[in-house]
Structures are given as structure tokens and as C-alpha cells.
């Protein structure tokens, strides 16, 4: 639950986004992301959920010709992270991401998790080893891999790989974690593991998660946003959205009449 005293971690304000082909994928999206809460993004395929999520870590900057308009204000800096003077790398140092398909690096399990620290030039091996262990524990993977930290990450199962990617993102102590359909490539058990994990992270970390799974959104999130055709149709407490949605479209989507 959020209430008026819950601090806001980030806030998108009239956010428009244009892909390089001129397609406008986001239309004046405004919504708050509350601190240490889980915010779920739902909506039919192609409505712009991933596009919105990837604005937060400036992922779109990797491809020429993409254009942002509007603001994403991050607190406590009170800075628009989409502004020209902002370094995307600094943004990504504080806002981490887990992708739909597990994408471990061609490295050992240990080095995968240590990656964020290595690129931050952390030289102290003691610190790195501690952080890696902490992150793997945080991602509920430690017990499964503690004896094989020097194995290649590709040798893990899909669900383990995804938890490895979560550990990798956790190791750098991000302030916000972005999850783009983190369980869509996983079986129900691995999915349950990851959901449990996100539940444990609640309260410690601000999470923004895209999901196609209504039950998942209802189970894990505090707030939910329903998007449609690049627009934010409805935003509110997850309980409210799922029990008493204001708009007919939201209700239709949630109940499976559409989408």
C-alpha cells in the first residue's frame, strides 16, 4: 500500500518517446514510482511497457535516432535523468535492469556477478568477494552455486541464469531495479522463486516490473499502471486496480475480455 506520506523515488512527467523510425511509442506518460515499493506495468503487447521501462536507464540511447521528450525526475537528486547534461552511464550505475531473457556474460558465475563492480573499478578483491556472496544470497542462488563459482554461467539452468542476472544487478546496490517480464521465459517453479525474491526485495529497493501475468501483478505489486497504445490509461493501488478499476478498458483487460 502506498499513502500520501510514501516518498516518491522517481516520477515521469509528460513523457513522450519516439523511435528512430518516427513511431511515437509513448504519449505523455505521467506517473510516480514510490520508493521501496513494487510498481507493475501491465497492458497488451506492443502498448509500450518495455519502451517506458527502458527510458529509466536510458537504454534507448544505445540506438541512434531515438528521442525522448518530457522528464523523468529522480529523487533525492531532483534531476531530470533524460536531460542532455546527464550521463547515461551514471544513471545506469544507480538504476539497474533485469531483462526478459536471461543474458549472462560468457564468464564464470563469480565474474558475472562481479561485473558491475569491475566496471566501477573496484580493486579490493575482499570487497568484491563479499559483494558477490551477498548478491547471490539476495538472489537466493548462493546455496546452489557456492561450490561452483568458477563454472561458466551458461551451465546454469534458465531459472538459475535469471537469478544470476538479478544477483548481477543487485551487486551494485542500485536504487531502482527495472524488470522486463523477468519470468516469461521460466517455468512455474522458477517463476515462484523469482516472485518470492522480489517480495523479499520489497522495502529495500524500488522496483518497476513489466508483466503479462495478471496474477503476478496482483501478487507482487503495490501499485499498478495499465498502459494502452503508448498511453497511461489508469494508475493506482494494485488492490484498487484489480478490484475496482475506474475505466472499463482496464477492467476488460484484467478480466481477460480483451488483450
Amino acid at each position, binding site marked *: 500500500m502506498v499513502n500520501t506520506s510514501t516518498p516518491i523515488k522517481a516520477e515521469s512527467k509528460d513523457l513522450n518517446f519516439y523511435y528512430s523510425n518516427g513511431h511515437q511509442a509513448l504519449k505523455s506518460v505521467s506517473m510516480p514510482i514510490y520508493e521501496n515499493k513494487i510498481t507493475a506495468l501491465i497492458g497488451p503487447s506492443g502498448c509500450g511497457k518495455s519502451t517506458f521501462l527502458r527510458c529509466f*536507464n536510458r*537504454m534507448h540511447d*544505445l540506438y*541512434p535516432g531515438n528521442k525522448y521528450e518530457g522528464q523523468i525526475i529522480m529523487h533525492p537528486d531532483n534531476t531530470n535523468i533524460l536531460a542532455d547534461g546527464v550521463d547515461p*552511464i*551514471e544513471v*545506469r*550505475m544507480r538504476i*539497474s*535492469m533485469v*531483462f526478459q*531473457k536471461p*543474458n*549472462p*556474460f*560468457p*564468464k564464470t558465475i563469480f565474474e558475472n556477478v562481479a*561485473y*558491475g563492480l*569491475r*566496471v*566501477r573499478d573496484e580493486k579490493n578483491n575482499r570487497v568484491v568477494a563479499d559483494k558477490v556472496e551477498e548478491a547471490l544470497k539476495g538472489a537466493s542462488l548462493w546455496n546452489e552455486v557456492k561450490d561452483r563459482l568458477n563454472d*561458466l554461467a*551458461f551451465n546454469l539452468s534458465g531459472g538459475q541464469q535469471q537469478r544470476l*542476472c538479478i544477483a*548481477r*544487478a543487485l551487486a*551494485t546496490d542500485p536504487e531502482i531495479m527495472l524488470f522486463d517480464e523477468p519470468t516469461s521465459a521460466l517455468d512455474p517453479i522458477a517463476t515462484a522463486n523469482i516472485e518470492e525474491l522480489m517480495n523479499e526485495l520489497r522495502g529495500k529497493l524500488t522496483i518497476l516490473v513489466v508483466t503479462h501475468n495478471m496474477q503476478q501483478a496482483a501478487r507482487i505489486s503495490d501499485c499498478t499502471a495499465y498502459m494502452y497504445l503508448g498511453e497511461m490509461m489508469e494508475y493506482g493501488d494494485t488492490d484498487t486496480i484489480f478490484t475496482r478499476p475506474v475505466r472499463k478498458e482496464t477492467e476488460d483487460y484484467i478480466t481477460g475480455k480483451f488483450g
Partner: protein
Amino acid sequence: MLNNLTELSISPRLAKNIRRNVKERVIEFILMMAALSAVFTTFAIVAILLYESFGFFETVSLVEFFTGTVWTPLFEDAHYGIMPLIAGTLTTSFVALAVAVPVGTIAAIYLSEFASHKTREITKPVLELLVGVPTIAFGYFALLFVTPLLQIIYPDLPGFNMLSAGLVMGVMIVPYIASVAEDAMRAVPMSMREGSYAMGATRFQTALRVVTPAATSGIVAAYILAVSRAVGETMVVAVAAGQQPTLTFDPTEGAATITAYIVQVAMGDLPHASIGYQSIFAAGLVLFAMTLTFNLIGHVVRKKYREQY
């Protein structure tokens, strides 16, 4: 209900289509012939090499061949130690790879990870154009331009030397490495790069720590190709490194390579079945064994670092 197991007549619509079957067979046969012709040629070459070398080794012992330090099969006082030619081949190849591997790899990283689409579209064809330049042109470029240039720094450098030949050969090989390694790096899925950037990595860190290791197998393939090119290269070394078999690993000296010896002898008119004539097949066999060894090593390394994304 159980299936009726008695023979049923086959409906014409489901029967085997004879015409299509025959057509498929014919196509399959033609394709197989094309593939076999390459295999057959290779075997024929190996067979001829072995056959002619056999005559050679009836006169010359393997011990003398591999331990002798003088190679003068055409002289009155003939010696048959292949070592000087191997030394020449290895030295020129080493110089060439010392240039081509770093430059080619850096070029590949630049083209794949840093260059804009436009830059790449211009640079790549230009690089590949370099592949089309006849190697004899590179040979004379080494002899008439690079050697005099090196002699300014190094006044004692002889007119024929392995350094100049190796350097130019290296430049010649750069496009091979750059092109094959770049293809390998570009094949690394974008999702892996995104994973790196999302951790706050820079472009350079992503290129070096994620893309390059992910493309190891292809990059190794590029190096193997380069080694084979260097070991087998003929014109540049024949023109610029000299024709004198000399047992030395010093690139500032001139020395013949295996290939240089083969062209030199092949251009003269030696009677078939003479020992001099047979010696080029023995030398060719060694060359073949060397490239085969490098290719096998490459194959093993590639298997070890097979792409796994």
C-alpha cells in the same frame, strides 16, 4: 475402436510422387558431386605430394631432412636439411602476425563496436578491396618502398630481408582478420551488450569484457586463417625476403621460405623425377603439415570456446 490392420489401397492423392522423387534425387546427386569434387581435389593433391615425396625420401633420410641445417638440393654438394626453409617461413609469418593480429583485432573491435553505420559502410569495402590487390604488388611494394624506408632507420639492412616482407605481409593480412573477427563480434546478440550497458559499463568496457570473449571462437578462426595465409604466402616473400636458404630467426636478414623455394625451383626447368624436382614436393608436404597443424589447433581452440549464447 482398434485400427484395421489389413492392407488398404493407397489413395492416389497420398501416393509417392515419382516425378518429385526423381527430381529430388537428381538435385541431391548434383550437390553431392560438387561437394565431392572439393574433397577429391584435396585428396589428389595430398596423394601427389606423398607419392613424389616418397621418391625423395628414398634418397634422403628423414633424419637428415629434419636435422640438417643446410638446404642446397640443386648444388653439386647437395644438402637436404629443411630447417632453414622452416625458419624462414616461421620468421616471416611471425613478423606478419605480430602486425596483423593486433591491428586486425583493433580494426574489428572498432568497426563492430564503435564505428557508426555510415563509417562502417565505407570502411569495410575499402578494407576488403585490399584483399583483391595481387600479392605480387605487395611484394614489390615491400622490396622497392618499405625496404629503402627501413634502411633509413637501419642502414645495415640488406636489400632482401624478412622484416620488410613480414611487415607488408602483415598489412596484407589485416583485412582478413578484421573482416572475419568483425563478423564474429557482430554476431554477438545485442541482448548481451544491453546487459553490460545496463550494469553501467562504457562502450569500451562492453567491447573488451563482454563482446570480445563472446566472439572468441570467431576471432580465433580469424587468427587461424591469418596463420595459414602467412605460412602459405608466396609472392611477397619470394620477391622481398630473398631466395637464399639461411638458418636464421633474425628478421633483419634475408632468407628463403618454403614457398619461395618452391616457386624458385618450379620456375626453372628441372627434369621430372630428379631429386631437385622431388625436393619441392617434400617441401610442399612440410608446408601442408604446418598449415594442417595450425588448423587442427584452431579447431580444438574453437571447440573449446564455442559460442554459447
